[in-house]
């Protein structure tokens, strides 16, 4: 029973972080039709920014997380400037764009390698300690991660559902020409989407690297999992992505608890292959339609 509850709790924590990462991928895919493979690099950069602020400079966790979000958002804008601006609307966008994001990701990883070196670092927790209920360990850091992620995901959902600019982001993702004719500034929408999704990925990196570990290439696996979540949720559907994140998080936690950590990635990929066979459009996706 204790092991079961521990797995459920672990799943909620993983799901929260995957949600933070995956909504960013989904937003960018939905509005720009861009598979952003620099998302993992930005995640790690967020982790290093937080590490530098907390460990090297001795700032508090709140400041470190805010700094990670700001720097990541700036990286999102760089991505916009070097990938989106020169390529969007040109022939070959579909493939050229994601290959360019791989390049940005490599540059980012190499830069981190130069500055911080290859060794794996342990990121300290924002709040140390834990409490135990019925043999289930609730680490304060995990509660913090979960809480922050849920609040941000709810805020993002409300923003997209009710605010003027949030509605405009969805409109652009569904019908670009009509959005232009409504007077929506499409370039500004793209810029904001890149900034917001990068800052969420950076925050995920800042928070999760205290549970996992921090190294220049540590973003790859979380990004793969976020991709699985995005596909499972139905590329481009924010609601679907959030639900999918928790399902994948729980699945992973259960596999780790009952089959061992080594099985978590293979299990996820087997799962997503099975899902794609049965429901190619994912959980909330609609076939042959622009979504979000």
């Amino acid at each position, binding site marked *: 029973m204790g092991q079961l509850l521990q797995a459920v709790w672990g799943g909620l924590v993983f799901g929260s972080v995957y949600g933070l990462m995956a909504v960013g991928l989904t937003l960018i895919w939905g509005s720009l039709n861009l598979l952003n493979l620099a998302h993992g690099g930005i995640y790690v950069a967020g982790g290093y920014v937080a590490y530098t602020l907390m460990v090297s400079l001795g700032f508090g966790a709140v400041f470190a997380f805010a700094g990670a979000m700001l720097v990541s958002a700036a990286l999102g804008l760089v991505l916009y400037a070097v990938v989106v601006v020169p390529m969007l609307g040109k022939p070959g966008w579909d493939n050229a764009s994601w290959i360019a994001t791989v390049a940005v990701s490599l540059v980012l990883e190499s830069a981190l390698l130069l500055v911080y070196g290859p060794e794996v670092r342990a990121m300290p927790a924002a709040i140390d300690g834990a409490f135990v209920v019925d043999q289930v360990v609730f680490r304060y850091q995990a509660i913090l991660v979960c809480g922050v992620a849920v609040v941000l995901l709810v805020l993002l959902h409300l923003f997209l559902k009710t605010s003027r600019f949030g509605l405009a982001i*969805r*409109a652009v993702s*569904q019908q670009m*020409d*009509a959005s*232009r*004719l409504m*007077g*929506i500034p499409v370039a500004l929408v793209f810029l904001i989407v890149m900034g917001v999704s990068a800052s969420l990925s950076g925050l995920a990196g800042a928070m999760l690297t205290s549970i996992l570990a921090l190294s220049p290439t540590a973003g790859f696996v979380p990004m793969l999992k976020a991709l699985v979540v995005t596909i499972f949720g139905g590329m481009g559907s924010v609601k679907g992505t959030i639900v999918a994140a928790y399902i994948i998080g729980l699945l992973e936690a259960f596999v780790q608890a009952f089959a061992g950590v080594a099985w978590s990635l293979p299990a996820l990929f087997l799962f997503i292959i099975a899902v794609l066979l049965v429901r190619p459009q994912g959980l909330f996706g609609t076939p042959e*339609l622009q979504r979000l």
Partner: protein
Amino acid sequence: MLRVSDISAGYDAAQVLHGVSIRVDAGESVVVLGPNGHGKTTLLRVISGLVRPTGGSVQFEGEELVGRKPEDVVAAGIVHIPQGDLVFPMMTVRENLLMGAYRRGAWKVRKDGLDRVYALFPPLKERSGQLARSLSGGERRMLAIGRGLMGDVKLLIVDEPSLGLAPQVIEDVYAAIKDITREGLALLLVDESANHVEGMADRVYLMETGEIRREGNAADLLGDEALLSTYLG
């Protein structure tokens, strides 16, 4: 009000418009008739800033619009209701209409805008919470028109509102457009058939292979069966 002078435009190597000039005066309803594929839609896309012309000018209330972004054209008071079903499929009817009020001034009075559109198209009110993709073709067309009316419009541009609709629905859509123009709005409408524009148009242009062939009062041109069948088949 709107003065389009000597516009040339095209896509890649293919030139579509060859020196087109038209004008719309305040409060006037102008219709451009021509067969499909002869540049009517391109002309509208030039006016609304979606296509940059290779030559010519578009002036609205004395202001040059060529080279301006679509959002600037909307800000000037020109609303373009595109051909087909360019609604936002995964947004509700209400959310679609709200996007028509995206501009800050219109957003402030969006409640009034919704009331006005719902009064004009009661079916949209009944379906306000439904996703746009669940609407019928006629309802979608009404949604596209209603969405265009949410902002502060001076000139309404409508691209072939009859396309793909059942005859009875076409009547309804045109009746609604007529109602709208009674409020003094200027209208520029393009269509491939003269069947529905009688009684609505003040002036008519006939367009063929990217050029304006004839211009005249609606009463004269639309009465000339021989002329119409020459150009429209």
